[in-house]
């Protein structure tokens, strides 16, 4: 027994001494004190403990740069411009930067260490991604399986997003679901309405978050949201717009149309095709009809695929309805939102009518 105990003791003592040495060394040598990170010329000033990488320091302050490899310097996605305080370019960064980036002080934030005050520049969108502890202001039943929820942001906070983007909603543990889960939902309210967020949520049978929303949430409940995210938003051109959506895909289109009204964009024609099965699946019809009446550039075309009753809407599946309404679509721009099947079918129809694929923007709900 004794030899084993001595061995353990000696090895533990050795490790202990080395650990102590490391701690002492860290205290004396790796202590950089408090450093400030100036983001986008003073738009945000963060105070961090020096010594860590820029990427982790920023993440600690809830500013999340994209990173695929988790800071090991092997993916090259965490780039940002460092204007001051980064030190010379490291050999580990060189393979991921092209000449233009090197010239404009682009660095890999996971390799740059914060050793003093530092000035950086990140894309504006990243700054606006925030976490909100919201309160449900209202829940509206739109159809038998779609609800509209309005979330009030905490006092004094606002959200800055582009119409068409989405937010992540977190469900709290309920019934058998023990963990917090999150799903992405498109924002349906206008960017100008920045004290609250509206989401349109369609019930997914056995969906973890939708079940929570439909069966457990009520007005006044607190809900955690993070956003905005996403590359689905109105591009800045003068082209005529075709919007096609189904189900809860109406949400980002509504936001885009409301945003166009707010910004006074009236030189672009916009047509919104909304595909549904029958009349009971339609919602927001009155609102879009009112917009249509007031703004001559906008046209609302609801289409019902399986409703032979007498109704004022177009009949047929949405792709047929779109095809019927247009001849050549070469000069148009399209925004699609809905199920992957619907989007693939629509892309086929649009490209078939001459629309280049890079002018078709979509958000697949899967």
């Amino acid at each position, binding site marked *: 027994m004794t*030899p084993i105990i*001595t*061995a353990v003791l*000696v*090895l533990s003592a*050795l*490790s202990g001494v*080395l*650990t102590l*040495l*490391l701690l002492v*060394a*860290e205290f004396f*040598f*790796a202590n950089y004190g408090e450093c400030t990170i100036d983001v986008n010329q003073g738009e945000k000033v963060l105070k961090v403990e020096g010594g860590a990488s820029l990427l982790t320091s920023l993440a600690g302050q809830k500013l999340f740069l994209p990173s695929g490899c988790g800071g090991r310097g092997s993916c090259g996605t965490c780039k940002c411009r460092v204007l001051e305080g980064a*030190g*010379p370019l*490291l*050999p*580990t960064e060189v393979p991921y930067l092209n000449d233009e980036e090197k010239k404009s002080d682009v660095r890999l934030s996971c390799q740059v260490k914060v*050793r003093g005050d530092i000035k950086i520049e990140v894309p504006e969108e990243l700054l606006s991604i925030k976490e909100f502890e919201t309160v449900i202001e209202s829940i509206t039943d739109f159809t038998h399986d779609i609800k509209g929820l309005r979330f009030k942001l905490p006092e004094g906070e606002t959200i800055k997003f582009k119409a068409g983007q989405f937010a992540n909603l977190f469900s709290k543990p309920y019934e058998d679901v023990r963990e917090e889960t999150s799903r992405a939902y498109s924002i349906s309210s206008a960017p100008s309405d920045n004290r609250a967020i509206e989401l349109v949520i369609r019930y997914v049978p056995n969906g973890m978050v939708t079940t929570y929303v439909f069966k457990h949430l009520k007005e006044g409940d607190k809900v955690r949201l993070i956003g905005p995210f996403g590359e689905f938003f109105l591009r800045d051109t003068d082209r005529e717009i075709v919007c096609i959506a189904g189900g809860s895909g109406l949400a980002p289109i509504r936001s885009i149309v409301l945003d166009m009204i707010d910004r006074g964009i009236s030189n672009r024609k916009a047509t919104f095709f909304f595909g549904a099965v029958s009349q009971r699946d339609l919602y927001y019809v009155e609102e879009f009809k009112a917009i249509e009446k007031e703004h001559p550039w906008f046209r609302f075309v609801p289409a019902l695929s399986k409703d032979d009753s007498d109704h004022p809407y177009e009949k047929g599946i949405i792709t047929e309805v779109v095809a019927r309404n247009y001849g050549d679509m070469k000069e148009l721009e399209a925004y699609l939102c809905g199920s992957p099947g619907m989007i693939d079918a629509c892309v086929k129809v649009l490209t078939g009518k001459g629309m280049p694929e890079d002018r078709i923007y979509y958000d697949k709900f899967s």
Partner: protein
Amino acid sequence: MDIQNVHPFIIFFAAITTNNILLTNFLGMCSFLAVSKDLKSSLGLGAAVIFVSTFTAPINWLVYHKLLVPYELEYLQYIAFIVVIAAFVQIIEMVIERVSTLLYLTLGIFLPLITVNCAILGCALFLVIRQYSFTQSIAYGLGAGTGWALAIAALAGIRARMEKKSKVIPELEGAGIALVITGIIAMAFIGFSGIVRIN
């Protein structure tokens, strides 16, 4: 000749040439092959190896002779040496980072690589096997590191020139031709055997 009477300088010189840890024992091959593509990084890595081996050799000597031998725990030498090397690489990295940013940028990124470089562990084990004294172990650590650095710098220089001038058949490109060159350099180093030989 009794090893204890050999002058440390001779051990230092032998460690660079005839007992070159890389060319005669083929230790530290992985980083040797990986980083020998350009001269600048190989000089950086070489300097870092010199640094670490010079510091860890005497420390490991102390750990072995003053801690493991008295408690008859020689069989723990591998794990003890590795722990010591890992810890000291960390400390050295912190010190360099603080003291000289320039040196840190040259060595810094290579230091963690060296923690897993078997030449450093080999160096510690050899000084035990060969029963070096404390001063001899310092000379040996410095020499082994220098020898390794010399070898990687030589290979990097040759590879850089070959890149421009030689045509290597595609099957041998990269690590293949590097190993062939390493073999030839090793044979050349055997030429030093006439001058000094220490086992």
